[in-house]
């Protein structure tokens, strides 16, 4: 445990010096401010409290931003050590590879949690200031916060796996962007196209819900929208969110971080210094 903490302490310091802490907090804060400013005009008519509406918008934002920040922080984790030539020495220390990964994960996750908390905090404060009823949305906000951290953990793990597989930072960066595009953007577009082509057939009723659960980002969106009061305010997968039980999307967002870390460990074990 002390070795994991020592590793995360050092990693946090490095991220602080490399401005990753500042960049991720600023990014989340900026987007949250823009989002709450843009969302404030359209409320009133929906009937939900202001914070619940903000949470619904933040969910859509987090689906894009949290994986992106997580992948950007993690792609260099192992490939960078290989390129700098620091890995052989590290691996002669009495510290195991899973311990190294967990140490890095702890540091990166702390930064991500900080960024997400600051971003959501700003949006929530704005909502609470303008609407006294907004307190009703606090449970949804809390749910969004911890599920965002789990989503971040998943993509940090995926990033470490990409980093170990690529072995070079440039290759790892490419792989990370590819993963983000594939899982966050193209995956949904592909499913949408398939649903439209299928026109209510077997794919839409059987495969589509499973495909949503299989993608950590979609499961995150499903869970937050299904659990939120403001389902009606959300677009896109809202229909699907009603047919998939809450426990299924919860299980997916809980299992994915474990699976991603297992994947990263397996990939890291294959790296010979």
């Amino acid at each position, binding site marked *: 445990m*002390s*070795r994991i903490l*020592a590793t995360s302490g050092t990693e946090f*310091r490095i991220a602080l010096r490399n401005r990753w802490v500042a960049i991720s907090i600023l990014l989340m804060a900026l987007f949250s401010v823009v989002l709450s400013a843009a969302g404030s005009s359209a409320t009133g008519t929906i009937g939900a409290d202001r914070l619940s509406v903000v949470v619904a918008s933040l969910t859509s934002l987090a689906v894009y931003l949290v994986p992106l920040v997580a992948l950007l922080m993690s792609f260099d984790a192992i490939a960078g050590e290989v390129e700098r030539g620091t890995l052989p020495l590290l691996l*002669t*220390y009495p510290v195991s590879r899973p311990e190294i990964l967990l140490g890095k994960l702890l540091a990166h996750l702390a930064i991500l949690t900080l960024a997400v908390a600051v971003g959501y905090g700003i949006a929530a404060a704005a909502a609470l200031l303008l609407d006294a009823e907004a307190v009703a949305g606090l449970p949804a906000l809390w749910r969004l916060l911890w599920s965002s951290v789990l989503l971040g953990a998943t993509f940090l793990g995926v990033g470490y796996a990409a980093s170990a597989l690529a072995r070079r930072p440039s290759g790892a960066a490419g792989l990370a962007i590819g993963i983000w595009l594939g899982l966050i953007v193209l995956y949904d577009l592909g499913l949408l196209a398939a649903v439209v082509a299928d026109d209510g057939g077997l794919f839409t009723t059987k495969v589509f819900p499973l495909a949503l659960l299989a993608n950590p980002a979609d499961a995150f969106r499903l869970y937050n929208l299904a659990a939120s009061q403001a389902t009606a305010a959300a677009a896109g997968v809202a229909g699907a969110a009603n047919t998939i039980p809450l426990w299924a999307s919860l299980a997916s967002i809980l299992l994915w971080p474990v699976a991603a870390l297992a994947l990263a460990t397996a990939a890291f074990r294959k790296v*010979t210094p």
Partner: protein
Amino acid sequence: MTPTLTLQCLTKTYAGQPALSDVSLTVAAGERVALLGHNGAGKSTMMKIILGLIPHDSGSLQVTGAAAGSPEARRNVAYLPENAAFHPALTGLEQIRHYLSLRGEAPSLAMALLERVGLGHAARRRIGTYSKGMRQRVGLAQTLIGKPRLLVLDEPTSGLDPVSRRDFYALLDGLASEGASILLSSHALTEVEARTDRIIILSGGVLVAEGALADLRRKADLPVSFQITPKPGFETDLAAALPQATPLSGYLSLSCRQDEKLPLMARITALADKIADFDVQPPSLEDIYSHFSKRAGQ
């Protein structure tokens, strides 16, 4: 007493190319062993196998009584990689504190370690601003953490100036006298000459020579060369008296086998009144090294 390091018939092949063939070796506690060889002779491969960083194909090895790379072995072995590298954003102090924590030692010992390698003044500067020699010292400082029973040092003195080199070897002497075994690699025999108990020469992955410097010198049996400067007017006399000598500009050069050395000296001494100056050149360390390296077909 069990040796700190034992290799038995160790073999490693990279993509069909033998990197190490049938290498056997033992290193006792407190022994300083130098590993010599050209680039690609197998020095780094051997070190990485000992550290458990890469697997070997056949043969066996024991590192401080445990399997290479096992947690037990890693606790007892310190490593200094060739061109030691660290994260440029950390300061020397932070880096050493980190390594201390990983070995379960108090991070507060970091400053003392850095002072021991002469880096106290730069401890709070980022490693990114360090020179190569300073990075090498950070690498050296981390090998001193805890009480390692075996130090594996890959070209430890590259990048160090002659004074630092001497300090470095003095540090090693201290460690060895406390019972630590030291395995260090080098390109040059001249450098490790007086500083190690035993020399091992690898060539093309084969252990071609092993022993103290005096043993290697005897085994190589390289010719001794003589330079004789005749007194003015005696050039032709002297050349006639020593027909095997090669006349060069102003002096005569001749060489002989080790066992012919004394008789030849006697003959030269007999010609003393015709000789202005006289020099004996034993085979240089570089000659001995290349003799063993070449013999293996390099």
